[in-house]
């Protein structure tokens, strides 16, 4: 049955991203009033919802603080009701620790940490509903949270998954496609420079197909970056209109 669904999907479009709807946060304190900035974001794609919250502290615990850079901490957790079977251990298990680690590394590469020495930036992501592409949605949500917090970054970090079914690359896999046993590649990209911040691939894929797969994921990420950019600008317009009155 899964094979039929997949065939249908790529008969119509093989590169189309599922419809994504980004909703920027409703609360964000300005930097000068409070010593910390909190900005929750709700990222809602067609089937996955993830709120991401970003907090920046002007100080950091002694043991972990770096003298010339900010330390970025990420915590990834899944709500117990997010998957089909109830999750018994939402955080602390190996998969969540690995995800948190990957998120931290992705953002350490993208955020200009040299501007905040001896500080700490915390990023909390919680998955409300999981339907494939967990890592990508987390990265996108966290990017928007950081943009809303006003933390300077090199570029938007966009992430997307891609898969390979019967010699056709597919972008943005859903849960059924991911667990169907085919290949899945998750890619986090800085679109303007084309630098890959994180590359993660599971399951078997012949070496010759790697090029096409990475290319598909990169194209999807570039399209995603345009969507993110549009949402940020729109939000900025709305906020400026509201604050002017």
């Amino acid at each position: 049955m899964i094979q039929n669904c997949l065939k249908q999907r790529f008969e119509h479009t093989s590169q189309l991203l599922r419809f994504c709807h980004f909703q920027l946060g409703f609360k964000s304190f300005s930097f000068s009033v409070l010593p910390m900035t909190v900005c929750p974001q709700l990222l809602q794609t067609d089937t996955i919802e993830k709120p991401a919250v970003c907090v920046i502290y002007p100080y950091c615990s002694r043991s972990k603080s770096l003298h010339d850079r900010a330390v970025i901490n990420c915590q990834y957790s899944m709500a117990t009701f997010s998957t089909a079977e109830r999750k018994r251990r939402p955080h602390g298990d190996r998969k969540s620790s690995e995800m948190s680690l990957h998120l931290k590394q992705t953002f350490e590469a993208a955020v200009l940490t040299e501007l905040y020495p001896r500080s700490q930036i915390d990023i909390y992501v919680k998955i409300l509903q999981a339907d494939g592409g967990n890592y990508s949605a987390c990265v996108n949500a966290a990017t928007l949270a950081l943009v809303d917090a006003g933390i300077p970054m090199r570029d938007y970090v966009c992430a997307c998954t891609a898969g390979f079914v019967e010699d056709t690359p597919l972008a943005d896999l859903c849960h059924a496609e991911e667990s169907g046993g085919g290949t899945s590649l998750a890619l986090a990209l800085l679109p303007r420079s084309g630098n890959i911040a994180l590359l993660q691939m599971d399951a078997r894929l012949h070496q010759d197909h790697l090029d096409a797969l990475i290319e598909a994921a990169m194209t999807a990420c570039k399209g995603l970056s345009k969507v993110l950019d549009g949402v940020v600008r729109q939000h900025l317009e709305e906020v400026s209109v509201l604050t002017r009155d």
Partner: protein
Amino acid sequence: MRDTPLSNCERRFLLKAIEEKKRLDGRQTYDYRNIKISFGTDYGCCIVELGRTRVLGQVSCELVPPKDSRPTEGIMFFNLELSPMASPAFEPNRQSELLVMLNRQLERCLRNSKCIDTESLCVVSGEKVWQIRVDVHVLNHDGNLMDAASIAAISALSHFRRPDVAIQGRDITVFSPEERDPIPLSIYHMPICVSFAFFLQGSYLLVDPCEREERVKDGLLVIAMNKHREICSIQSSGGIMLLKDQVLRCSKIASVKVSEITELINKALENDRKIRKEGGKFGFAESMPKERITTLKRDEAPVEMTDVKETANEIVNRTETPTEAVSSPVLVAMGTAQVGEGIVNSWGLDEDEEDEPQTEDTKTGSVDCEHTIYLKSTKPCKQK
């Protein structure tokens, strides 16, 4: 115990050497260290030596009820342990980032790639299946734990034999190795991880980094492949920026290395099988040469040494004589002396603030000043 930090001059030396395409032990950029695989007396136990990195892999099996979502498949469980035996930097019972990364990578490389036929591990569907547990212990850490661990795991799995079972109705009889010969696992392919370390913002890469090189690396790319040129997993870590053609180039290098390593594993397995069949002695004790004194012996590093004297002389002649060091303190006023010159004030005070009248209390007697560090005398002094 915290690991001794790497000194700046050592770091600079390593990076400079990498820029000139030289490695500490004389290898080329894409060369692996010597790999030695030895098997123990029991089936499923193997030690892999990658240079001085030593890793032990042990496979064991047990009959358990299967998972509810997959009643006809056996269970594979992977566990990697880092103990202080491997390196003083590893603390016992601590979930460090390295441990999580190694464990997850081992799981992804071996489980998601479906290298073992789990359906063949089923004994009674829905009731009893074999659970295969792979334990990897790091005995010595000299860089590149991931590759050594994956080689150890897949060699141990290929070497392992599980007990034979007979099912009669509802009774399951497990035969001991004396009654019936144990059966090997059915392995489809051998995925092996190859690690690439990136330096200097991704401009230089090295295969199989040793421990010193690992300390100065920017990031790591691990590609797991099998000899049929299928990529089983890719993982980039460390927050480096990669370009697509770098990844493709690494995958080509990995395919070459993996086929060499797979041949090595197969040869070692073949040797072990031959020795066991002929009735000769096998096991770890046999694989260590007895007649040599091994503690003080070091292998010769293949480094080019013919022109060392001339290059050293050149460098010495080219450098300038070191500047005179100021040794004695300069007495500025009663109670204050100055030794050397301080560094530039990095607090970012503007020029105007310093010209304002200073109204600090006279008790403390210290003034922020740009270039000199004042030493306070032990008794409190009244004036600045």
